[in-house]
């Protein structure tokens, strides 16, 4: 063991390095190419910000970006509120059928998005709800809700019911108890649930793809269309911006919230 203990960690670090290279190199290359002048990704590298300028003038992509942000923010807000409320309902009360309700959280996660997406398309089309941003929002919230409920419920497992009883014994109403005691204590779970909701929505391509219409589309759908038309470094530029944006957001948030930790 002692002989191995010096060798294995070194090998382990090297291995992690390889995995990280596999995960990040393509992203780095793609970002680098957004600053390369050649429209056909030819080397040698010639620095330019031309593609970012072009992007700034691409109304379609910009509109799609704002749609994506709008929907992600709305999805986060709605799914976090509804999901937290549902988690509290499942946590506080006993009733027949509770296990069924808990089990119903699984299908939206366990069913491939291709199936949920096409099913939504059929249903929304058939009922007159139609396609477009409202339909995308409807779908995103449904996909995000189970994640919020799972994460918040997990946090509630560490929450003692005595605290709610204590607040009630001190005269607090159900509303005051929720706001002053329960929510502050499960806040890390609620924030984590919100992050999941944001990620599910902002990253969501499949469901958006089936529910988008030409004027009402999100960034991933627009990028997909552009890639299939034949790609230009403009896509690299917008992709780079997305990656920098989402990853920095997560880095900032992770400073306040330790993943899986109880802090």
């Amino acid at each position: 063991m002692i002989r191995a203990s010096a060798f294995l960690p070194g090998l382990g670090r090297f291995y992690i390095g390889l995995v990280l290279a596999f995960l990040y190199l393509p992203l780095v290359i793609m970002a680098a190419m957004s600053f390369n002048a050649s429209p056909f990704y030819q080397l040698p590298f010639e620095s330019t910000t031309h593609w970012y300028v072009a992007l700034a003038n691409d109304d379609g992509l910009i509109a799609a970006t704002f749609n994506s942000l709008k929907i992600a923010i709305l999805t986060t807000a709605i799914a976090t509120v509804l999901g937290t409320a549902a988690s509290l309902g499942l946590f506080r009360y006993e009733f027949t059928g509770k296990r069924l309700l808990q089990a119903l959280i699984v299908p939206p996660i366990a069913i491939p998005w291709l199936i949920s997406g096409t099913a939504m398309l059929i249903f929304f089309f058939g009922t007159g709800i139609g396609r477009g941003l409202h339909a995308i929002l409807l779908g995103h919230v449904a996909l995000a809700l189970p994640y919020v409920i799972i994460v918040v419920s997990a946090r509630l497992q560490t929450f003692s019911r005595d605290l709610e009883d204590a607040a009630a014994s001190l005269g607090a109403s159900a509303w005051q108890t929720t706001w002053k005691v329960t929510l502050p204590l499960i806040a890390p779970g609620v924030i984590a649930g919100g992050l999941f909701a944001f990620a599910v929505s902002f990253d969501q391509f499949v469901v958006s793809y089936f529910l988008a219409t030409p004027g009402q589309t999100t960034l991933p759908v627009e990028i997909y269309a552009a890639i299939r038309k034949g790609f230009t470094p403009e896509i690299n530029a917008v992709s780079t911006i997305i990656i920098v944006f989402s990853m920095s957001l997560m880095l900032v948030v992770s400073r306040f919230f330790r993943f899986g930790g109880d802090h």
Partner: protein
Amino acid sequence: MARVEVQNVQRAFGDHKAVDDVSITFEDGGFYALLGPSGSGKTTLLRMIAGFEFPDSGSIRIDGAAVETVPANKRRIGMVFQNYALFPHMSVAANVAFGLEVSGQKGKDVRRAVSEVLDLVQLGDFGKRRPHQLSGGQRQRVALARAIVTKPRVLLLDEPLSALDKALRTTMQGELKRIQREVGVTTIFVTHDQDEALSIADQIGILKDGRIVQSGAPEEIYDRPNSEFAATFLGDANILDGTVVEGRLRLDNGAVVALPLDSTQTSGRMRCAIRPERVRLAVRNAGGRAEPGATVVWGTVRRRLFSGSFSRYAVDCGGSELQAIAQRGATRDLAIGTEVELSWDRRDLIALS
């Protein structure tokens, strides 16, 4: 301050009757202990008085007004939980102020009330600390301060000292008693610890299987238990079975002893109890003479448990074992195998139903 009347209260969980037709009155300003083993229904009874549970039938009145359907936050009670249930995200002062603030009080009044009550529990300087920075005993005091600062009509304590070590528990028992006297609030204290109940409460109610088997002052229950359960759960007791024959009690081990003083039974089976500390031990034929009126039984010392100021003996008397406690110094220590005579005053023999 208030009087709490519980009348014919029942509460079942599925088939299990947690509280089964309980009636008990808690007088204004009294300090009551509900004592029972786990599963006896004492916590359920407390939670019904608090308003966390609701009776299936029966009534609960506080100050004469029926409250059995009133939710906890409208009952104006104070409660101390087993694990204190302090709000971990609030300072000590904020915890204590919580009950005042949710009722709409603000500013200087709240601050003054908080600092007064923290002084009362001797935590005047701890207002800014967080619960996790406190010791168990300090948390206990904060929980108590938080529960009484709102001037509740009734103070409920659910095994509040069970998480503390023994020395601290004794200190806190005294503290609780002092604070309860100062505040004067009707207090109901749930515990499974008989010593705690004996030392702290003015009145004790013993629960078993959802029913109150006996209630009264500690001395009364201890000296005059009405059942084997009450006798053995509250303190130790030797249980003696026998038959009443010609105004005497013939024990199943063959010894014949005097009937309990208050017994009027003239025949049939009888079960009695005698507290170990009421049993006197002497070496057999040592020349000492049993006091008049005393009953004598002979036996052999089997075990001795040394406890410092006293020793506890297990004595074999014709097949049944009797416990006796002897103050050291009053008697000399007896070796195992010593032939002894046990005696007691017939006034100390308790007839059980």
